[in-house]
């Protein structure tokens, strides 16, 4: 077998193993889905009227605020899913099974690739589920073309890839599953301090640069542009650069840790 075929075969075996875990123990995945759904409902039904006052000069109604929220919630969903990835990577690293994999003549990176592909798939699935909730409570894209929808999904997948690699690295350096969960928490929290819930202009002046220059904001703004027709501007390529940079960083980090002698 050529080395590429070997890599693909081993990685898909590992992917099947991860999906089996997810299917056997859906509670972790469901718990992580709960956060974005609860936040979505909370912001729309409880804080919605107050929050939407800050948007579009105060005249926005509920459906406009849902539309404003959804891109941020989608990213948060991805953040939540990859926390699960960090936990399961950490589980793997602390379990003896990893030592077994390392002594087998399999493609060396296949365990990690399995985690990454599994995590991206799960992220996209989670986004679809949370998106369905959003649609159910009144989210409508204004005038997105099929191409724009595709681009939006592409961007979400790219964000998922970036966050996944970072989460894999976090999972690998964490001494146990709990620590991994905690270390990866910023990936859920970071969207809270982006333009996900209120526009950056509405935040205190000293805080604006933090919200403005963090990776989630350009991605959220790009999604808004694609789905709701707002101005994308430089946010498009900024989002892509962020994603590629984070993916590369997470990949190199994970690889370095993985290649160290265990323990």
């Amino acid at each position, binding site marked *: 077998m050529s080395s590429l075929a070997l890599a693909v075969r*081993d990685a898909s*075996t590992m992917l099947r*193993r991860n999906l*089996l875990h997810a299917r056997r123990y859906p509670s972790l995945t469901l718990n992580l889905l709960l956060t974005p759904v609860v936040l979505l409902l909370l912001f729309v039904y409880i804080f919605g009227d107050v929050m939407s006052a800050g948007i579009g000069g105060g005249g926005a109604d509920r459906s406009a605020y849902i539309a404003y929220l959804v891109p941020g919630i989608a990213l948060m969903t991805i953040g939540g899913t990859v926390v699960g990835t960090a936990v399961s990577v950490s589980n793997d690293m602390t*379990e003896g099974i990893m*030592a*077994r994999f390392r*002594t087998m003549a399999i493609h060396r990176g296949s365990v990690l690739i399995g985690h990454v592909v599994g995590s991206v798939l799960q992220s996209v699935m989670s986004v679809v589920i949370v998106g369905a909730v959003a649609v159910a409570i009144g989210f409508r894209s204004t005038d997105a073309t099929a191409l724009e929808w595709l681009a939006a999904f592409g961007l979400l997948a790219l964000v998922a890839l970036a966050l996944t690699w970072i989460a894999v690295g976090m999972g690998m350096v964490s001494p146990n599953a709990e620590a991994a969960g905690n270390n990866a928490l910023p990936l859920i929290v970071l969207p809270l301090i982006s333009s996900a819930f209120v526009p950056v202009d509405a935040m205190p002046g000293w805080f604006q640069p933090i919200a403005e220059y963090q990776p989630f904001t350009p991605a959220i703004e790009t999604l808004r542009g694609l789905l709701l027709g707002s101005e994308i501007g430089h946010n498009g390529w900024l989002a892509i650069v962020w994603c590629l940079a984070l993916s590369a960083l997470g990949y190199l980090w994970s690889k370095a840790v993985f290649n160290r*002698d265990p323990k």
Partner: protein
Amino acid sequence: MPSSVMPTSRIDGRQSPAAVSTAGLRKSYGDKTVLNGIDLHIPAGSVFALLGPNGAGKTTTVHILSTLIAADSGRAQVAGHDVATSPDGVRAAIGVTGQFSAVDGLITGEENMLLMADLHHLSKREARRTTAELLERFDLVEAANKPASSYSGGMKRRLDIAMTLVGDPRIIFLDEPTTGLDPRSRHNMWQIIRELVSDGVTVLLTTQYLQEADELADRIAVLHEGRIAAEGTADELKRLIPGGHVRLRFCDPSTYRCAADAIREVTRDDEALSLQIPSDGSQRELRSILDRLDRAGIEADELTVHTPDLDDVFFALTGSNQPNQPNQPNQPKEAVR
């Protein structure tokens, strides 16, 4: 890196083809030296046992040979491949059961087996056949569809070894394979190891059970303080220490003194009122002792024959105190020091 002081010629040019050979293997963690020049030569198709007290470096040796960790210096070849430069060649030839459970607890025993089969690139049919056969052989059929995390320690251990055998490895490393197994499972495991060897598989096992090494191993190495303290067949090792003796115990002090006078070349233990007479335990030697006692009209209250076993070798070589053996032949040397 300074070259090793130990002779390294063993690794090449030996008559029997070695499944595993090492020369001058060293490994330290910080300033703690764990392996300090290990030379091994394990002929293909044999069982080699690595004995040693806790912390001797058995697991470290297995980890280096199975490409899990790198040695600091020295050379190691497994199945003709250098562990440092051709780890994949090594991995393709070996099966490893580590000291600690290496099963995926989240999936069932059967799924664990199928996972191994997939990673060995077996066909679907072959995978199912191997899985069924090994589950049967390791008495795991009933538990096959339960998650491995719900298994008892011994069941996990059996699953672990079953997983190692998927893909028919020619060289198998077993790090304490029977620790935590009940006597029946242990004998089963021994039987399985013997079957493997009769199929020509090479087995390197570490163990705490000297009886296990005695039962299974063609050759035994005792690892102590980072070095091989002794190596050979069980009989060779037993011959290394003159541990055989007959022990006589008395209740009455005066009888004890009479006996000590009657049989001269004895080691006395005045407090326990016991005498220790060097002996190989043969019928002839026993008779001569009994004759001398009879002639003096002495009856001992207790007579035990002690032949050296691997325990004696182990304790003698690793310098631990053996319980109930205050006058072990190698002890006086210690006292002089």
